[in-house]
């Protein structure tokens, strides 16, 4: 198994783990963290795919750098919504999940 395959499989596993966290976690901050795991796993999968052609291809790398920055700004926005929600509702879980769960 080549190193590229190893990293691609790690990326796909990270995507799966992130999705599980997104679904199973109740605390909204944990969900945002899990969402970042998905993104980061996707970048790794994409980067490994882009490196298959032999020489390191700069186009996927540039797209991934763009993606990392956009992911941070999306996370900052999500966190802002979460803080606003917690301020209004006094809870950090979604209303439909408040009853014990």
């Amino acid at each position, binding site marked *: 198994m080549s190193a590229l395959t190893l*990293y691609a499989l790690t990326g796909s596993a990270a995507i799966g783990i992130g999705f599980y966290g997104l679904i199973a976690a109740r605390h909204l901050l944990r969900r945002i*963290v899990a969402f970042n795991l998905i993104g980061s796993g996707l970048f790794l999968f994409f980067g490994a795919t882009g490196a298959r052609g032999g020489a390191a291809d700069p186009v996927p790398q540039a797209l991934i750098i763009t993606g990392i920055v956009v992911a941070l700004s999306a996370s*900052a926005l999500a966190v802002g919504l979460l803080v606003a929600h917690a301020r209004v509702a006094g809870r950090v879980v979604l209303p439909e999940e408040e009853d014990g769960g």
Partner: protein
Amino acid sequence: MTWAFDAALCALILGVAFATVLGRGVFRSIVFFIVYGLLMAVAWVRLDAVDVALAEAAIGAGLTGVLFLTTFGRLARNVSDDAAPGRFHLPAALACGGLTGALAWAWFAMPAPVRREWELPPAGVENPVTAVLLNFRAWDTLLESIVLLAALIGLWMMARDGDWGDRLGLPQHVRPGGVMAGFGRLLPPVGFLVGVYLVYVGADQPGGAFQGGTVLAAVGLVAALAGLVRPPRIAAHRWRVALVAGPSVFLVAGLAGAVLGAGFLTLPEPVAGTAIFVIEVGLAISIAVTLVFLVLGPPEGERRE
């Protein structure tokens, strides 16, 4: 030997990812996420993508980690933390396992890539990633710098009316002589030097506006969190100029390309090197300021409560 290193690194990444999702406590989950980001940066070095590794370490692990940690502190003040990591969710686990399996299948099913030798056309810079970011795919980068602005505007819209005009974020209280106060004095000079260097060498070596700008943003954040500088007021005009400097310089350069006949956002080769450097400096300033403001968050008028 290198194979053993790769295998160990991947195992560590997956173990830390599991700990992030399944561990008890939100704080622990965030700390594991930061470790995960740093390990991911090492993986990018192994994939020969040093530019991405710098971005992942600075943004993915560093700034995102600070963002989550400050949010955790902010939430802990008025919300009781429920540490329980949700019950085990069998259907979700099966579905996510299936997703991972499908992606793995896709990797093996993809047709073998055509190996070809190619060279980038002259772009005015030596670093191919910078050439793609600021010349060949300049559209993406321009729109990305605008996405950053849009996210900041969205975040500021969540400020309460009574807080508008205050200083950004929460007021910081730092214990004199504590760790934060010490780091706040030690790190910024070194970080500033590293950030400026990364922007400067970005044309020819790994680095550039995004990586350098992020390091500069980290310097600003450390100084603000250590209470050494007070964050600006949300309506300060000078800082708004800094926010739009990068996209404006980029747009002007793009229009100049159109006027010179090369086409919008196409930099003609003789001046491309200089133009890219100017754009990078402008972008780095805007990225640094925008990221600091994004992580600090809108004003939260503490003292009124």
